[in-house]
Structures are given as C-alpha cells and as structure tokens.
C-alpha cells in the first residue's frame, strides 16, 4: 500500500472510477488543464481527455444544473465547487432539482451525481473560503451529505458516492488535504454511505464528530487518557445525512456523557440534530447535558483569528473534563 495524502487518495478514487466506468465525467472550474485548484483532479484530463474532464465557464448553478442533466441521461457526473462557500450560487439547482427529481418522477428518473467541495478552515485562506455549512445540505430531503475525515476513508467514500444512485454532496476537509499521509490500498475499496464508525473506544464519555475535527478530537482523547486516565469513545460520522444514530446513541447509553464537535456554527448546526437524536433514543441514560464544542455563530473570521474560531484539541479536552466532573 502506498502512503497518500487525501488529495492523492481522492485523485486515485476518481482515476479508478473513470477507468472502470466511462459514464463518470468530471466538470467544474479549473478541474481540467489546471488539475483543480487543490490538484484533486491532477492529471486526469491528460489521462481521459477533454471529453471526460470538462473545464467549465465560471458559473456554479451552471455546473450543478448541467450535471443534473447529465445524470438524468444516465451519466455519473462528479462536479466540483471550487470552495463550499461558492456552492450557494448553485443552491436552487441542488434543492429544486437534484434533491427532488427521483421523487418528482416517482422513481422514473434519478440524479446519480456527486457534488464535491472543499470545506472548512485551517489553511489561512481568503474570505468565503473556510466555511462549514453542511447543515444546509443535511436539512435538505433527497440529498446525502458525506464528509470524510482522512485519506483512506475519503477515497473509499468517494468511490461509494460515485456509485450511489442518489445525489451526494461530498465535502472534503481542506485542512487535511495535505496534512498527513495514510496507507491507501491500490485495490478497490468502498465504505457504505450512511454508516458511522467508532474510531476510538472508551467507556467514560462519547464524542461525536466528523471531517477535519476528528484529528483534534482524537488528540484530546489521547491526552485525556494519558493525563486523566479517562477513556473517550470517539465516533466519526463520515456521513452527516442520512444520519446514522445507531453507534452514538448506543455509546451514549454506555457512557452517559456526550460531546459533539464540529466546525460549523453552533446554532441550528449539525450538533443540534445529534443532540435531538440522543434525547430521542438515549435520554434515560444521559447523566449530564450534552456538550457542544463548535464554531461560533458568527461569520468565519479572516484567518488571523481562525485558530480561535475553530474547535481545537485543548477546547475539547477542557469540555471533556467538565463533562466528567458534571452530573
């Protein structure tokens, strides 16, 4: 197995799926000759030609809308929004059509497209380049909202997303794009969409998170273990919607103490739904209020302040200690 960054792993997923299935088409701004501004599509136009890797005009609704048409025809478009903060330009296409066409046609038509977008902070980017608004998509019936947390699962989930018969919004944590390498097998690997996983076992408290936050959460959990001797169970959602609440509600029933960690703004954010599910399914086992360690409810500040905006291991550790003290 080769050690790969997330960018390389995503590139591998695209390359192999394109080689295997000529219905897979890439399109977006700068995805062709330039190989994508983060190089996720690097080399693919050379390999598959301009017919399958389309450099489009600068128009996100155009990209999403054209992808919908391609998908209806039977292709498997994988389109890129250059940053998730510019997917709002396409929001009506996604909500009005991608999410609805299967239902509107009573199953006659479907929209097997993937909309990829780098999301989140941590790379000292320009304004509008660091948002985490997965809640918009998670709240939209008909969509699937997938958010990998590392090179290997990113690759496996992207393959699954491409093969999924329904529209998948695929948010890539740009903070992890090149942050580290992981063994990624050359052979095909998939991960089921709609399934979370336990990335660290523990009996003392449960931390639910996903995407770029998995790393600082794991760091905090290790610290909690080495310093306080307490064990946090960490659950990585991988798919935000449809939300797999089986593992985290079960874990909560064991630990009685739960924390949710995400970059997105807190209010009306994904953490609220996780709390609601916990209340619905594990209420009588909860010993303390569920903690939310999240982005604040302000516009993501310019990069000089982003390290204070984003949840970090230290903040998670503090919240964990408080959770263990309380109740």
């Amino acid at each position: 197995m080769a050690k790969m960054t997330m960018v390389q792993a995503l590139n591998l997923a695209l390359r192999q799926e394109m080689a295997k299935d000529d219905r897979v088409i890439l399109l977006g701004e700068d995805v062709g000759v330039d190989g994508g501004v983060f190089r996720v599509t690097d080399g693919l136009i050379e390999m598959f030609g301009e017919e399958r890797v389309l450099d489009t005009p600068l128009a996100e609704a155009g990209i999403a809308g054209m992808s919908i048409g391609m998908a209806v025809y039977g292709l498997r478009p994988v389109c890129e929004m250059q940053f998730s903060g510019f997917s709002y330009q396409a929001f009506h296409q996604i909500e009005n059509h991608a999410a609805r066409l299967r239902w509107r046609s009573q199953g006659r038509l479907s929209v097997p497209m993937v909309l990829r977008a780098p999301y989140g902070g941590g790379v000292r980017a320009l304004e509008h380049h660091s948002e985490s608004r997965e809640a918009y998509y998670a709240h939209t019936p008909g969509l699937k909202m997938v958010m990998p947390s590392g090179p290997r699962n990113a690759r496996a989930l992207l393959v699954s997303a491409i093969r999924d018969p329904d529209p998948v919004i695929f948010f890539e944590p740009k903070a992890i794009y090149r942050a580290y390498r992981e063994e990624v097998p050359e052979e095909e690997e998939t991960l089921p969409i709609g399934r979370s996983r336990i990335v660290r076992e523990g009996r003392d408290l449960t931390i639910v998170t996903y995407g770029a936050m998995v790393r600082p959460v794991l760091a905090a959990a290790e610290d909690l273990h080495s310093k306080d001797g307490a064990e946090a169970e960490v659950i990585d959602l991988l798919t935000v919607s449809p939300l797999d609440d089986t593992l985290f509600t079960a874990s909560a029933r064991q630990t009685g103490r739960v924390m949710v960690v995400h970059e997105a703004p807190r209010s009306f954010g994904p953490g609220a739904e996780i709390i609601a599910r916990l209340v619905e399914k594990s209420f009588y086992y909860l010993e303390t209020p569920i903690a939310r360690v999240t982005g604040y409810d302000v516009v993501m500040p310019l990069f000089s302040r982003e390290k204070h905006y984003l949840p970090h291991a230290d903040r998670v550790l503090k919240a964990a200690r408080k959770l263990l003290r309380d109740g």
Partner: protein
Amino acid sequence: MPRTTITIADKIEALSIVDAKGVVDKQLEPSMPDDLLLDLYRAMVLGRRFDERLLALQRQGRIGTFPPTSGQEAAHLGAVAAIKEDDWMVPAFRETAAEIWRGRSLESVIIGLNGYNEAATVDPPGTTLPVSVPVGSQMLHAVGIGWAARYCKEDKVVLTFFGDGATSEGDFHEAMNFAAVFQAPVIFLCQNNQWAISIPRSKQTRSQTIAQKAVAYGMPGIQVDGNDVLAVYSATAEAVERARAGQGPTLVECVTYRLMMHTTADDPRRYRSDEELETWKAKDPIPRFEAYLQAKKLLTKKKIAAIGEAVQAQIQAAVDNAEAQMKTMGDPLDMFAHAYAETPPHLAAQKEELAAELAAGGKEGADG
C-alpha cells in the same frame, strides 16, 4: 480600432410564414406531410378545448390551480413537431399540448393537477422531463442532456421551453453560455407571451427582442411569429438540423400571447387591457391555421366539426377515467417512496410513525 463599430458575427433573424388571415408566403412554406399538418391542427384544438375544460373543472373545485396555455398552441406544438420521439423535451410548465403530443395522457395532467404525485407514473417512461416550476431552472438540464447525448454518440437533440420572464433569471444566462461553449445540441425555445404574471415584456428587459440575447453567447437567434405554426416549425426544424450537424444551439423566440390568466389564481384584468387582449385574439393561431388548411383543401367545415367532437369525447373520457383512477390513489404512506433509491432508517421510522397514526384512525379529538 482606434474607434470602430464591432460587427456581430451571428445573425439575428425574424420569420413569419402564414399571416393572421391565413395567407401563406409560398416561398417560405415548409414542405410538411399532410398528416403532420392535420395532426398539428388536431393537437392545437385539443390543447384549446382541454384548457377550457380544465378551467371549468378548476372553477368547480375538481382540480387545483393550473396554468392555461390558450393562445400559445402554435408556439409549443410547432416546435415539438420538429423533433423526433426519442429526442428530448425539457419543458417549463406552459406547454401542456406539447407534453400531450409527446405522449403524456390527459389523465396524467388531470391527476397531477389534483395534487397526486402518481401523475408521474401514469405515462410510460420517455424522453420528456416533468414540468419545471422554478422559472428558468430547467434549461441547464437540457444542456446536460444534450451534452450527454453527444458524449454517448447518440443522435439526439434537446428542445427546452421557457417564457419571456425566464430570460431574466441567471440560470437562463448560464444555460445559454454553457450550451454555446460546449456546442450542445439544444434548441432554446422562448414562448414570449408578452407577460410574466403581471410584468409586461417591456419591463422584463430593455432589449428590443429576446432573440438578440443570442448575441451575448455567440449563438444564432431568430424571432418567429409564434402564432404561426408553420413559422415555428420551420425555425425549430432549422435549429434542429444545425444541432444534429454538431453546429450547436439556437435561440428561437416565439412571439405569442397568453389569452387567459397566468394561473387560475390570477386575475389579468388587474394589469392588462381588454384592447390588448382583443388585438391578440385577432392573431389567434388556430383560426389562422384552419384558414390555411382550408385553402390547402386539407380541412372542410365538416371535418373541422368532426375533429371538434372527437376531441371533446377524448377529453370527457379522460376526465372520467382520471376521476375513477384517483379514487384508488393518495395513500399517504407513499410520500416516503422515491425519496432515495433505498429508504434510509430514519425515513422508515417516520413512515412507521405515520402508519401507526393512520392505523389508530380518525381524529384524537382536536381540530385539524
């Protein structure tokens, strides 16, 4: 340069073939089989009579709100007659007669207008998309479909419809630009019916014609008398030919008029004059086409009456049939079907919730 006028490469044209009195310009008259001409005539009459019947049903509370198409039959039927069955049609929502031409049943229309999702399955699968309510949003799908067809080396073109109002949406612009850049085989057919609800064409855009908007995309554009079914057919057929030959998209503006209300929730007397309506009634596409066909000896008074009767019988049968079918439709639990290819657990649970509520039956007591 230094100071010059830029000459625009693409031609913007205007076309009319049969005038309001039914007199044809022989030089421009397209060669169309007699059967096709008669089928078109019949479809136009069906469109008009069906509209009238739907209006009556709506007033009786037997269907919900609907958008009448009267006056625009030539614009959408002339266009759709110029594509093949396995070409694609991507409609807005004011092309009912064209949907029917493409195989949608009257029953499906009635069932849909009664708020039954089941309408979508009444007809066999085909290459017509469902109507698109969000104005302007469908044209991009046409571009994707057209591109995909070419990619798959299938000889198909895509005809997409939209109104004059839709040309103001950003999506129109993005669709036109993408189609031109990718040379997608798409015919952009604007039913310029002079109004977008209460907004007249003159307030929708300052450009003198819709057709000239093609200049912005390096695309040919043509303005057609949209109440002249032969002109619409000819212009569309030319555009289809170009698209099939790999020469990319065309914008066809059909100048027409909505003779009735925007939808049955609308009262056009609030914003437009009787005089205007009368002017346009004089340009009605149906009598004009009738006169042309009579002059061509394809229609007689008797045949006209026979067609009228047959159409009315067809409509009556469809109404009866649809109303019978609807009796077994509307299972509330079906709202969870087709959300995804596979029902995820949370939806299965919600479906059970509703099933339990329905099983418990009736009211618990409170006012709905």
